[in-house]
């Protein structure tokens, strides 16, 4: 097991460096000068040159990348051009709120997805299966930002039950697990949960169907096991793959939250990314994307290791 973990970690290192390279290059594919956002339109050439030297944009690209990477490794992602605050602390505060949202959405989405998937797989080709798969396909096809709007229309505009935007009293830095705050979480969490719900349902349904058609299930039944015990075997066999899919979905929720956070003005990393894009705050853009991508890589690593821990077949291959 130890060797396996070590091998996975070694394999991740080149990925992490390449991810950093992509994030670094993002700033350099932008049309025009990276400084265009902070320079006044009538800035003199001299001032532009001074700033270019101050930000290190005058050096050759590989040198810039090396320096940037070295600083990033030491936890320095530079300063936001718009606010002047350190990028890392801005990103970390926002990520906290995104994690809150992702966990709530995962609880809803995975619970429903596992339930629908198991039921649909078990009662394959019955009406129960048809209902569950229809919900799943609607879940993966719905434009989630639109679903968010529709939920706001129903529960905030028409019924006036739940708040439409924000993260509750105290703003972005004052999250707590009490009703005053949770009220604000409900709609964004439901909206975020539909895609993972659909994907988990579809995966688990297919897995359950495959497992139930295998010979060992026949043997278990022939042995006289009750259906509940047979079902336990099904769950055990479906667990590694289902877990991998759920881990990946959690990563997508953390990294792909920008649309939903924009709809609900949820003060997470997605909203931060949105403002970084429109204020052309390149260090913040670069830093947010880097942190989110690294989260995703790390999560994938964890999933691989956890999968190997519960399924010995994976380690051997």
């Amino acid at each position, binding site marked *: 097991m130890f060797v396996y973990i070590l091998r996975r970690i070694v394999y991740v290192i080149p990925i992490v460096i390449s991810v950093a390279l992509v994030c670094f290059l993002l700033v350099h594919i932008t049309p025009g000068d990276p400084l265009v956002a902070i320079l006044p339109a009538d800035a003199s050439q001299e001032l532009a040159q001074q700033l270019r030297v101050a930000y290190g944009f005058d050096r050759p690209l590989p040198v810039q990348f090396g320096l940037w990477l070295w600083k990033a490794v030491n936890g320095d992602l530079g300063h936001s051009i718009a606010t002047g605050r350190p990028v890392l602390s801005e990103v970390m505060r926002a990520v906290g709120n995104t994690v809150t949202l992702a966990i709530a959405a995962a609880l809803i989405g995975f619970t429903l997805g596992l339930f629908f998937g198991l039921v649909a797989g078990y009662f394959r080709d019955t009406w129960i299966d048809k209902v569950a798969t229809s919900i799943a*396909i609607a879940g993966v096809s719905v434009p989630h930002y639109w679903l968010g709007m529709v939920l706001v229309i129903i529960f905030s505009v028409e019924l006036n039950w739940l708040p439409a935007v924000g993260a509750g009293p105290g703003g972005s830095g004052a999250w707590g697990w009490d009703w005053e705050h949770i009220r604000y979480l409900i709609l964004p969490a439901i909206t975020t949960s539909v895609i993972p719900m659909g994907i988990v349902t579809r995966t688990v349904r297919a897995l359950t169907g495959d497992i139930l058609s295998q010979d060992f299930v026949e043997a278990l039944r022939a042995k006289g096991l009750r259906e509940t015990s047979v079902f336990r075997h099904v769950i055990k066999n479906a667990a590694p793959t289902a877990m991998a899919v759920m881990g990946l979905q959690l990563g997508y929720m953390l990294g792909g939250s920008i649309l939903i956070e924009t709809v609900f003005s949820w003060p997470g990393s997605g909203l931060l990314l949105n403002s970084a894009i429109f204020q052309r705050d390149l260090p913040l853009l670069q830093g947010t994307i880097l942190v989110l991508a690294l989260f995703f890589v790390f999560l994938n690593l964890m999933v691989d290791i956890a999968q190997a821990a519960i399924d010995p077949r994976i380690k051997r291959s």
Partner: protein
Amino acid sequence: MSVTPIGAMSDAALQVGPAANARGYWATVGRRITRDKVSMVCAFILALIFLSALCAPWLGLADPYQGSMIRRLRHIGAPNYPLGTDELGRDMLARLIYGGRLSLVVGILPVILAFVCGTSLGLVAGYVGGRINTAIMRTVDVFYAFPSVLLAIAISGALGAGIVNSIVSLTVVFVPQITRVAESVTTGVRNMDFVEAARASGAGPFTIMRVHMLGNVLGPIFVYATGLISVSMILAAGLSFLGLGTKPPEPEWGLMLNTLRTAIYVNPWVAALPGAMIFAVSICFNLLSDGMRSAMDIRN
């Protein structure tokens, strides 16, 4: 599909492939899919949306750019405005139908481009193998390290708003996914006897890839790509929704959803209409892709 696996195979290959059926493979698949009610309904709805978008100027619709300050935000079913008017008093029905033009192009074109690039890359990686395979597939791995929404928005955000930039960023998102599928399918086909036979009879690598492999790998990749259209539609409209796609006053579903967002307290259901169009197209493509997958799975 003009290239069928059987037609594409040489004589040597014919004896190995699934050519024993009286009816050709694609003919069987076609028959199976036309018998699937869900797929046919989806195909009909999609055809309707496509044709109306294509023929929009000849449908006798109102001008989608012509606003009116006194006719803003009419409700659904208002006289002369069957689907109401938007925040600038423009006819929603006309804008939804005209909106299909840009929305469908920006949603579907990236998948087509990625299908071409990804299939070529995957075919080369899978067939040539060795260092070229490592180079292509490791690069693909790097793009897999980003959640696709994040990658699309990062590239679009860096390039700046615009239709071309949206198409480019979405293509970059889908190429690695299609490459991975194409590579794994190609690796599966490459060691089959008919490829060996073609090689033994003196065919060069390019001929083998084009004539013998392409027809056999296209099917699964095509099904995978049709499944991506739904994601692409949602992402493309999402980029416009964020303000990274086309610019006002162009009718486009994602952008319309964005500009109508301020109107949800005045006229909520009109504001939700553009999203319903995206949803309809997306779910139809998903169901059609599912139908196609099960139709191609001849074993059942």
